[in-house]
């Protein structure tokens, strides 16, 4: 304890500088959120004239949510999120298993192809995919935004493969001796052990789908099918100067994500370490 105190004292000016800097950064990080919420609860005539509201009103939420069909957009978003999470979990874990735990010729070539597709800009495949989905009659449906997830996502396959490689090979060998099929090993041995990694993938897919903008912009026309992201952008182009309402609706779109983050913080941090360091 004594040693620690002297250590701190000798570094005191530096430590204080670090804390001051962190405080400033905290304010910079947090102030936009404060401004967001504060604008959304100001009386209409104070939005443009006062920094701090004289009283709190909810009219922007009431009006915003009547002009902006939040529940409908939320439902659409949740449908897309659920489909993408389920699809990615099943397909990506299967493919990752095949790449990591079955010794077959061709898996290295496939893995190299997988890595190289991550560098392909979405713009290259955008037009042909639009043509394909148009030909299939899938435009203005959720199918272009969900079906691809069921065929694996390169980044999450990569992530899960790295995780599966860290599990000891003896696990599979023992199960094989017990007469398990490869599919049994995948489902009953490996998947349960990979639960933390799968949780991370589920979380990132959920978040990614919640935020996804370009896909819905290209494939959805009917406003009743919009997810929150696209709905909010379209709302902005119509109600561009009603800042109180815009901030109210933006708050409503952001809060669920922040709540989700606080509920699942550990999975988040774990996943970041996993994706960052092993990448």
């Amino acid at each position, binding site marked *: 304890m004594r040693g620690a105190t002297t250590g701190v004292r000798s570094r005191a000016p530096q430590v204080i500088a670090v804390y001051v800097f962190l405080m400033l950064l905290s304010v910079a990080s947090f102030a936009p959120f404060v401004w967001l919420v504060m604008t959304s609860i100001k009386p209409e005539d104070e939005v443009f004239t006062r920094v701090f509201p004289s009283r709190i009103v909810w009219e922007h939420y009431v009006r915003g949510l009547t002009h902006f069909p939040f529940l409908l957009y939320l439902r659409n978003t949740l449908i897309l999120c659920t489909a993408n999470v389920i699809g990615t979990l099943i397909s990506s874990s299967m493919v990752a298993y095949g790449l990591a735990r079955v010794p077959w010729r061709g898996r290295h070539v496939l893995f190299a*192809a997988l890595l190289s597709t*991550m560098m392909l800009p979405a*713009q290259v495949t955008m*037009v042909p995919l639009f043509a394909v989905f148009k030909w299939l009659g899938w435009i203005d449906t959720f199918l272009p935004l969900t079906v691809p997830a069921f065929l694996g996502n390169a980044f999450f396959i990569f992530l899960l493969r790295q995780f599966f490689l860290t599990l000891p090979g*003896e696990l599979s060998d023992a199960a094989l001796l017990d007469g398990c099929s490869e599919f049994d090993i995948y489902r009953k041995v490996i998947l349960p052990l990979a639960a933390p990694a799968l949780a991370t993938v589920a979380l990132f897919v959920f978040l990614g789908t919640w935020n996804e*903008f370009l896909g819905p912009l*290209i494939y959805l026309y009917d406003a009743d099918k919009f997810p929150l992201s696209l709905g909010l952008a379209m709302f902005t182009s119509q109600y561009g100067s009603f800042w109180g309402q815009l901030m109210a609706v933006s708050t409503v*779109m952001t809060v669920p994500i922040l709540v989700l983050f606080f509920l699942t913080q550990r999975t988040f941090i774990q996943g970041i370490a996993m*994706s960052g360091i092993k990448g």
Partner: protein
Amino acid sequence: MMKGGRHLRSRGSARARRDFRTGLLFAMPWIIGFTVFVAYPIGASLYYSLCEFDGIRTPKWIGLANYRTMLLEDELFWRSLANTLYMVVIGLPIGMIVSLVIALLLNQRIRGMTFYRTLFYLPSITPIVATSILWLWLFNPQIGLINILLASIGVRDAPGWLTDPTWSKSALIIMGLWGAGGSMVIYLAALQDVPQALVEAAHLDGAGPIQAFRHVTVPMLSPVILFNLVMGLIGSFQYFTQAYVMTAGGPQDSTMFYALHLFNRAFLDFRMGYASAMAWALFIVTLACTAIVLRSSARWVYYAGEEA
């Protein structure tokens, strides 16, 4: 490759054949996905780029005309490429340095590290459309928070930010810094993996904090720096949503980024052949930049496992 035994299976060619079938079966979803969503579109996109194509009628072969138009006649192509390169060359390094510096600060064994980490991370998970609208409001030249604060510290003629072509890209970069927490946590996770013994050994050998940083911490971090650089590069070349929502490319095309120009040609004008040609140019530029970075990485990226 494989940890532990696999000897149980590698015996005999019947086993090998069965493993091949099994492996193929497991990988099948992605093989189908790759064929339908990657391989075919790449081929089709190359073909469309040589055609006049509106997305519905049969593509009409016009040879290299799209590329000629793009390179020789379309001023917006060059403008949008320059704007995008601005984000890559200026925005990306600034973002990377800021997130690294914050990670280094948080790695000082300070009290409340997890609190700060959470606080700095939150902006990066805020939905991007919501972030864009919020910052549109913060950057409002007359009544936005930023210019109110600037006025309160005595700045007279504060910039018009998104309404001023000379400031618009800077505004977007500043907004990007708000989300720097995303890569900050990746750096922080890596920093916490740097063995403290190495840093202390450097101190014992007489290295000052800067030398220890430069010769111990940076090499240990270099794989993560490379990862963030490559991801950032690919992402910056596709910068789209913020510009679409906030500025629609204006003012005076100062935020007309490549991906936005391409999107407009494809889905506003339905010049899908032309958009495909633009996509190929983007692909080539992205690949070239990534290749340069990866090639240079042999000289500055250090992998701890390699020496063993």
